[in-house]
């Protein structure tokens, strides 16, 4: 039953599933490094999935779908920024509230457009995002197929891992971001614009997380489902904790998680009699909790994470 082909397929789909987590995770990682905990990452991804699907459904253009998903994500994160930075509201509460808002808006607008009874065949789009085979590299034996025959998003995510790491640890901008995350008051005295930096990072996060969400509805599926992100935004946040806010470690964590997710899909497909599919579906969530217990105990994040900042001057 376990052939080389199964294992290769497993690795290939791990990398596919890893992409939205990694994209959203990297963007959130930058934001958290600046001291903001944005739980509305979940809602932003859901919004991206919804907007991308609607645009793709009505125009058939996946490019515009991606663009508008990105803009919608940015708008949502901008709203989060206004509430938590300018109005200094509790970040946890605001994040949770925005997630409730997006679930409400997306499922309402979906029904308003397609009616209440959409089954048996829910509305779907004709074409989805297609993988791009990188010339030469994809011909390499074994690895070629696994690594170099993916959506452009996947390549972008891998490049972003190193870009984020370089930005954070090798540039002056990165030093400023980390300084804000550790001690915004001092950073402010040193002339760093705390709020502007946080605003910019949050809008960037919105753009990227919106695209990450769009992958679900116009990349992997060809339809939108209520709450289709299924907690992926929260899982990305868990992976950031595990990676100790380091982009390179995040890549490893996201791969490990996606491997379990891919494995879970295989278990469902194999229809093993003594393992009901619901237990397979539980696996990624249980795995996240176990991972947090094993590697996420008493991990110290940026010192000012989730604390509101008020200018003293």
């Amino acid at each position: 039953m376990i052939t080389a082909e199964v294992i290769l397929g497993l690795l290939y789909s791990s990398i596919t599933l890893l992409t939205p987590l990694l994209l959203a995770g990297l963007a959130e990682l930058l934001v958290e490094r600046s001291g903001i905990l944005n739980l509305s990452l979940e809602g932003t991804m859901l919004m991206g999935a919804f907007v991308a699907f609607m645009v793709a459904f009505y125009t058939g253009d996946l490019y515009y779908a991606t663009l508008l998903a990105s803009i919608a994500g940015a708008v949502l994160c901008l709203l989060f920024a206004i509430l938590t930075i300018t109005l200094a509201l509790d970040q946890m509460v605001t994040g949770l509230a925005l997630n409730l808002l997006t679930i409400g808006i997306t499922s309402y607008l979906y029904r308003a457009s397609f009616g209440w009874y959409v089954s048996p065949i829910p509305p779907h789009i004709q074409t989805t995002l297609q993988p791009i085979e990188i010339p030469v590299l994809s011909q390499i034996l074994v690895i070629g197929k696994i690594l170099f025959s993916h959506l452009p998003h996947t390549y972008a995510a891998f490049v972003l891992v190193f870009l984020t790491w370089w930005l954070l640890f090798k540039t002056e901008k990165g030093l400023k971001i980390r300084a804000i995350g550790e001690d915004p008051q001092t950073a402010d005295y040193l002339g760093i614009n705390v709020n502007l930096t946080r605003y910019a990072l949050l809008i960037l996060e919105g753009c990227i997380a919106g695209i990450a969400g769009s992958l679900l509805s116009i990349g992997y599926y060809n339809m939108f489902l209520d709450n289709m992100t299924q907690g992926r935004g929260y899982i990305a946040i868990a992976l950031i904790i595990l990676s100790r806010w380091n982009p390179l470690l995040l890549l490893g964590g996201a791969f490990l998680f996606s491997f379990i997710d891919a494995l879970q899909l295989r278990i469902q497909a194999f229809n093993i009699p003594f393992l009901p599919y619901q237990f397979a579906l539980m696996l990624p969530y249980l795995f996240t909790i176990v991972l947090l217990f094993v590697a996420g105990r008493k991990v110290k994040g940026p010192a000012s994470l989730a604390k509101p900042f008020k200018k003293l001057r």
Partner: protein
Amino acid sequence: MGKDPLQAYYWLFQGAFSPSAISETFVRATPLLLISIGLAVVFRAKVWNIGAEGQFYIGGMMTAIMGIMFKDLPAPLAFPVIVLIAGLGGAIWALIPAILKASYGINEVITTLMFNYVAIYLVSYLLHGPFRDPISMFPETETINPALWAPIAVQGTRIHVGVLLAFVIVVPLAYFFLKRSAFGLKLDILGSSPRVAEYANINTTHLIIQAMLISGFLAGLAGGFEVLGIQHKMRLELSPTTSPYGYTGIAVALLGYLNPLLIALTSFFLGGIINGSMTMHRMAQIPVGMAGIIQALIIIFILTGYFVEDKLSKKVMERLKL
């Protein structure tokens, strides 16, 4: 969407607060009330349990299992015993995230949410497998023996004993505990400043676990009431799909400023919106998801004027006479 908005709001209101609808609004408000009072307990300590949905489902499932396995429990004893076990089920479901948070500092938002998915899939397995009613077309248990159902409190309505218990007993009790007891004060201190809590010699580990257990117990109890009082069997849609009780409860608790008396009002109000949006859907063909938006918009409006931090810490300072 081209519908007359005034007409739509008319049906929303009619379906929510007109004399004929008001008893159903109480019925809808009860799980919201119990869940959000539980959430108020933990939220006061700034512990963000978002696992009420899972705790609610586990409570409901425990109730159905008890009801099916012990068909012949003597009637006056059955109701209290079964709902107590439902509550304990919810509390146990909250225990692991509670320990992870209190002893190891692991983010409770993530763990409680993960446990929601685990709970729903577990219930789904039980309803498709061992506890499925073989006659039914849907994944649900058989109907529980009517002798075990929660007694109806107001004839001609679905208002059962659980509704009364929630509004008449739980609300004042919770008010007393949160506002007038040392336990409530400790929660407020922990919520406004963990450092002060440590100086005050408060055992924060125990406090967090206790608060989470209470919160899980009330959510489980809500599941028990819902199954014994309303559904009379366990179903996959124990919560309305477009506004699940466990998540809506977060909104209700925050809207009620984490104060049990206000929460009684807000849960009645949101129960009305859920109830009314169904009437609105029937009469004006407006999607039920509208209720979700209305709820969320209210939260956003409230949030903009809601400075939890300042309010809570000021109150604590007043009570400590600092």
